[in-house]
C-alpha cells in the first residue's frame, strides 16, 4: 500500500535534479552569488599574502553558508508556491521521506557550488584548496547546513516574512557546524600536523549526526497542519 521509503526519497531527489537541469535556477544563482562574494571579500578585506592564509577559510565558509541559504529558500519556496508540498503530502509515502529527499537535493546543489569554489579560490587567492581533507570537511560542513537548513526553510517558507527569516533563524543554529568547519579548514590550509586538528572533523561528524537525528524527529511537526 505504502510506497517504499527509499523509492519515495529517490523520486523526490530525481525530480529536484530534473527541475534543476531544466531551469538551472539554483546552481546558477548560488554560483554567481558565491563568485561575487569571493571578489567582494578580497576587496573588502584587502587581503595580502599573510592575511589571506588566515582569512581564506572564513571567506570560504561564509560564502558557502550564504549560498546555501539562497538555494534552500528557492528550493522550498518552489514546493510551497505551487502547492506541491500538498501534492507530496497527499501521496501514500512516509512523510519523513520528503525531508530526506529535499535534504539530498539541497546537499547536492550546495556541494556543486562548493566544489566550483575550491579551484576558483585556488587561482584567485593563490593558495591550494584542492586537498583531500578539505573536500572531506566541505562535505561534512555542507551536510550540516543542508540538514538544519532544510528543516528551518520548510518552516520559514510557511511564514509571512519568508525569505528574510531563514538567515536569521538558521545562522545561530548552524554556528557549531561553522565553528568546527572553519577551525578544521584553517588548520588544513596552514599545514598543521593532522594530530592537532583531527578533533575538528570528528566534532563535525558528531554535530552532523545530532542535527540529522533532531531534524528527523522534528520534521513531521513542521509539515502537518
Amino acid at each position, binding site marked *: 500500500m505504502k510506497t517504499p521509503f527509499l523509492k519515495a526519497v529517490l523520486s523526490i531527489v530525481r525530480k529536484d535534479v530534473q527541475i534543476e537541469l531544466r531551469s538551472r535556477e539554483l546552481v546558477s544563482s548560488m554560483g554567481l552569488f558565491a563568485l561575487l562574494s569571493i571578489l567582494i571579500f578580497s576587496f573588502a578585506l584587502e587581503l595580502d599574502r599573510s592575511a589571506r592564509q588566515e582569512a581564506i577559510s572564513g571567506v570560504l565558509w561564509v560564502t558557502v553558508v550564504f549560498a546555501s541559504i539562497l538555494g534552500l529558500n528557492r528550493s522550498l519556496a518552489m514546493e510551497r508556491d505551487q502547492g*506541491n508540498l500538498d501534492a507530496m503530502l497527499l*501521496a501514500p509515502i512516509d512523510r519523513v521521506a520528503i525531508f530526506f529527499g529535499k535534504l539530498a537535493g539541497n546537499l547536492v546543489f550546495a556541494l556543486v557550488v562548493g566544489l566550483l569554489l575550491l579551484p576558483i579560490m585556488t587561482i584567485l587567492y593563490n593558495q591550494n584548496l584542492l586537498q583531500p581533507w578539505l573536500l572531506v570537511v566541505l562535505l561534512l560542513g555542507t551536510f550540516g547546513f543542508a540538514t538544519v537548513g532544510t528543516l528551518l526553510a520548510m518552516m520559514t517558507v510557511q511564514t509571512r516574512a519568508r525569505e528574510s527569516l531563514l538567515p536569521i533563524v538558521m545562522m545561530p543554529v548552524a554556528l557549531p557546524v561553522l565553528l568546527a568547519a572553519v577551525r578544521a579548514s584553517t588548520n588544513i590550509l596552514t599545514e598543521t600536523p593532522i594530530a592537532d586538528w583531527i578533533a575538528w572533523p570528528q566534532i563535525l561528524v558528531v554535530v552532523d549526526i545530532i542535527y540529522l537525528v533532531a531534524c528527523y524527529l522534528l520534521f513531521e511537526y513542521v509539515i502537518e497542519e
Partner: protein
Amino acid sequence: MTLNSELETRNFLIETRALVKAYGLLPVLRKLDLGITRGEFVALLGPNGSGKSTLLRLLAGLSKPTAGQILIGGWTLPDEAAAVRAQIGMVSHKVLLYENLSARENLRFFARLYNLPPAGVDARLAELLEQVGLSRRAADPVRTFSRGMQQRLSIARALLHNPDILLLDEPYTGLDVDASSVLDGLLRDAHAGGRTILMTTHQLDSAAALAGRVVILSRGGIGYDAPTAGLDGARLSAIYTETTSMVSAR
C-alpha cells in the same frame, strides 16, 4: 447507538462524526456530522470561510481534526492516514504541479510517489493525457500551459492512481466557459466510472447539473442537505441565499 444505526453507518464510504476543527480559538467546523455513500457526487456549497476547504483538507489527511472522528472506507484518520491517502485523489484551486517539468514528467513523478508498477506507467500516462486532451502538449513544460490546461493536468494527476474518492476544491476557479465545460465532461466521466466525488464550488449551475446531492455549509455546520433531483440553478440559488442569509441576519 442502536444496532440498526450501527449497520447504517457502515454503508458510508466517507463519514465524519462530531468533527471539530479550530484555528486557535476560532472554530471553523463545529461538530459536523456528514455521511457520503459510495458512488455519490456531492456538491459542497457555502460562503467563503464556511469551512468547505477545511473539510476537504481534513478528509484528504492534509490537516488534523481538533476533535471528532473521520472514517474513510473503514479506516480512521489521522491514524491510518497512509492507507487512506492511496484511495484519495485531490484537485485543489492551486494546481499542485511543477511548472518547470513537462506534463508527462509531472505525472511520472507522481506515479513514482504513488508506487505504480513501472511496467504499466507509460500506457497509463498516455491514456490519461488522451483523456484530458493534452496528448499533443505532453512534452511541453507546464509553465507554458493556460490555466485551463493546467487544471486538466491537475485532474489527470488526481486520477493517476485510480482513486475511489475524488476531492475537488473549487476546480472552476479561473476557468473560461470552454475550459469549464471540458471540466464538466471530465467530472461526469469520473463519476460514471464509479468514483465518489465531493466538490466545493461557487458555480451553482454546475452543482445542480452534475451533483446528485447538495450540502450547504454555514457557520461550520450543515445548513442544507438534499438530493438535487428537481433542482435547477435558479431554485438552488434561492435555497442557497435563504440558507446563508438566515445566518448573516443574526
